[in-house]
């Protein structure tokens, strides 16, 4: 690009060497140096972009590789028949559940031998693998006396260590003998896997279930908090869209040029940068302490997130209102529409795709927000079940997806970490869907004037 003889630094040298004119094709030292530094600079820039993309890839791999196991679970499937006599005999025992457990173990042993495997095991080992089975079996037969005498299939969840073994989190090398699982148990597990008694199935409970206790990672599901997030998003959508659009129309079309308008504008741009946790403090102090709205309610979460989302929506709505050319307004006014009519009948419909895109992006941001929800009590362990009805869904204590993920991450148990990663996959699927929707909307309806 650069002409060596023209560059000021080289010209004195060129003058000194007048006797021996240099070819323009031969680069002198300075040019070479400058070109090298040019190249280096370019590679720094490329490197920076690649570093950013590298982090994105690492993040994506971590999420997918760690989160996938949350969607499977390991079950122990055993089928056996309990006769009326056996049932009566077991009910007479002092340790009733122990008797039922023995039935289970016998059935297990039988099924193993059937397929030609013989691994010795005791009740303790089985307890470590599937937990205490007697109680479940007894309850089943107590509830369904009709099932006595016919073969009944039991699908019992394997313990979290066994679950970890089957999806690679726990290996023979890393396992230390403890009351939870011993190395010798893994032989039994291997044998059971080979005979098809232990198998891995898709974990529907993770998608539809509610949060479980600290000691039961296997039973934890994200369904209830998805519902909580859904109710929150309803509140955010139905409050922030009308309020945001109304405020934008006022500021863009009606506001007089004065200090008060300036104050509102400065306020909005500052609110957009206030840390989210401060909104949580606001929600706690105003909605819960002062107004006595119920704690942990999606309604309150929605209100807090509405206040947080408003600046985003206002900023994008104003941009789309501004993008509608003045000729549209002028034409409307020219045929006798009032200012209000020109805006509501012409400008607003034309700006609508942009407004909706901004709203979806604002909602996606709100969906991923965690910190303010923790302060108003929407922590994960509140999400113990689905709400009873539509109205109660707004006021019954519930959690939200990101808060649920945080609660799992804070439980310091590897089995829960897996659930947290899995929860992130679900959260990201929602966010991705919303963002793709926004992009499609923009591509399809946005007009360039």
């Amino acid at each position, binding site marked *: 690009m650069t002409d060596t003889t023209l560059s000021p630094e080289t010209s004195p040298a060129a003058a000194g060497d007048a006797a021996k004119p240099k070819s323009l094709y031969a680069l002198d030292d300075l040019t070479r140096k400058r070109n090298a530094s040019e190249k280096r600079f370019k590679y720094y820039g490329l490197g920076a972009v690649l570093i950013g993309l590298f982090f994105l890839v690492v993040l994506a791999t971590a999420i997918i590789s760690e989160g996938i196991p949350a969607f499977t679970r390991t079950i122990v499937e055993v089928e056996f028949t309990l006769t009326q006599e056996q049932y009566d005999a077991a009910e007479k025992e002092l340790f009733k559940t122990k008797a039922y457990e023995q039935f289970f173990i016998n059935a297990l042993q039988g099924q193993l031998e059937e397929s030609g495997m013989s691994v010795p095991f005791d009740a303790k080992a089985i307890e470590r693998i599937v937990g205490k089975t007697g109680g479940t079996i007894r309850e089943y037969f107590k509830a369904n006396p009709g099932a006595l005498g016919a073969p009944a299939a039991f699908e019992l969840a394997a313990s979290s260590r066994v679950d970890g073994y089957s999806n690679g989190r726990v290996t023979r090398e890393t396992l230390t003998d403890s009351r939870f699982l011993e190395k010798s148990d893994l032989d039994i597990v291997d044998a059971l896997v080979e005979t098809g008694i232990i198998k891995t199935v898709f974990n529907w409970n993770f998608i539809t279930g509610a949060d479980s206790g600290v000691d039961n990672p296997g039973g934890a599901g994200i369904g209830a908090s998805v519902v909580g997030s859904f109710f929150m998003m309803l509140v955010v959508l139905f409050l922030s869209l009308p309020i945001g659009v109304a405020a934008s129309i006022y500021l863009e079309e009606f506001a007089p040029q004065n200090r008060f308008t300036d104050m509102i504008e400065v306020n909005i741009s500052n609110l957009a940068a206030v840390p*989210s946790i401060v909104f949580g403090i606001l929600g706690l102090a105003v909605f819960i302490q002062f107004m006595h709205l119920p704690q942990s309610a999606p309604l309150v979460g929605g209100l807090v997130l509405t206040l947080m989302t408003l600046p985003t929506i206002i900023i994008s709505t104003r941009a789309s209102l501004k993008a509608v050319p003045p000729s549209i307004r002028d034409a409307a006014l020219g045929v006798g529409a009032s200012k209000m009519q020109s805006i509501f009948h012409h400008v607003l419909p034309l700006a609508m795709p942009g407004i909706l895109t901004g709203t979806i992006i604002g909602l996606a941001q709100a969906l991923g927000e965690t910190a303010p929800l923790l302060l108003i009590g929407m922590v994960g362990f509140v999400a113990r079940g689905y709400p009873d009805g539509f109205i109660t869904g707004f006021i019954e204590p519930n959690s939200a997806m990101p808060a649920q993920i945080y609660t799992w991450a804070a439980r310091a148990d590897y089995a829960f970490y897996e659930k947290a990663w899995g929860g992130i996959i679900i959260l990201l699927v929602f966010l991705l869907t919303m963002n793709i929707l926004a992009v499609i909307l923009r591509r399809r309806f946005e007009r360039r004037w």
Partner: protein
Amino acid sequence: MSLFWLVVIVLAIALVGYIAGRARALASAGGDMRDLHSLPVYYGANVAMKAAVPAFLILVLWLLVQPFVVHSNISGMIPESAVGDGSSLGLVMAEVRRTAEGLENAVASGQMTDDFARNARTDFNDITTRLKDAGQIVTSQITQPIMRAAQAYRIMVSNGNFYMSIVVLLAAIAGALWGVRETSAEFRARNTVERGIQVILFSAALIAVLTTLGIVLSLVFNTVEFFRLYPAMDFFFGLTWSPSFSGRGGSSELGILPLLWGTFYISFVALAVAVPVGLFAAVYLSEYASPRVRAVAKPMLEILAGIPTIVYGLFALLTVGPMLLSVFGDNGLGIMKAGTAVMTAGLVMGIMLIPFVSSLSDDIINAVPQAMRDGSYGLGATKSETVKQVILPAALPGIVGAILLAASRAIGETMIVVLGAGAAARLSLNPFEAMTTVTAKIVSQLTGDADFASPVALVAFALGMTLFVVTLGLNIVALYIVRKYREQYD
């Protein structure tokens, strides 16, 4: 009457008013629309607006004020003696509310007559068990003062709701009648309706101001309350942070300096990652990259900004922390004790801020007029020389503004530090040690079991106030610089 039905009835009144207003206007013009001042819909809308807007305004205000009035009345009823040791008025009031709700639900499900719930002066053990039988959550044994207060509470709330329904309905009907009465062919309905709409639009814009006001008031009141319990000097200049949750937190030491140190240290690490990478990426994308590379790389980088912070928090806790530990931990260099550290949180926060810095700087670099580039190229400068000697100096104020905005983000970031930085507050220079930040402590102080009125919980508001002031200051300066800079080339 439930709130839902009240809203439905008000809306129905508005609808009837709409039809009546429209019909009356048409009738007054003798059925000829051309004789009306405005289109018929405006006459209808005028009546509907006058019916619905004041009624809903009253409804909202009533709903806001009623809990406040009830609360202050009932808490006056509870004698000092009913507030036991280790308890507080707030806890007792929560119990009262729970009991009142329990009574309400028990009546609703038919397990208790309304009369019994209102007037029961009988054995309180009996009521506790009856409430428990009805499936209501009653934590402790209900004592007499609590029961009295709960009964009064329940009566006040139901009376309040009753009066509210009456007042709201009256307001709606009166508004509708007023609207219908003034309807005539000459009435300037469109102007009235449009003025009304403009007022509604204005009040929507006012919500932004109210939010800021709400933030400031909630922070200020609770902070003042905190400083009455805990000396401000110790808070601002204390070098130790060790809240004691036992009792009323009397022996707590709540100095903010270790938290501020942790906050700034982590933010510094984050900016040290984000600023060079983000800036170089912005320069590359705006000056070197072909349009096709730019069209792919820029949105990809911006994905990083759209990922929720909880994801980064988990990434720090479970991926970056253990990774750093394997290099700097006991098996490696031996200077890192646990996965949660300043470095972990700072690094991950830096990743989060890369797109923030790069897209802001990108905008600013693009705003530098092309003529300046062309001038530089014309003098024989290479691209990198143009960037270093022309574009960056010209864009510098804007870039400084962008960095300040990124710093304010970093200071206010919560989830990454809650999960990635550790919980111990200490003043140390080692970036591989766990430290904690202002935001992380706000979360831990307010989500714990501490009583709201104790200094260990109230300190969160003082921390929030500090955070708010610091970030607000950074934002104002940054926005001022960015705006000033934009004007320069417009």
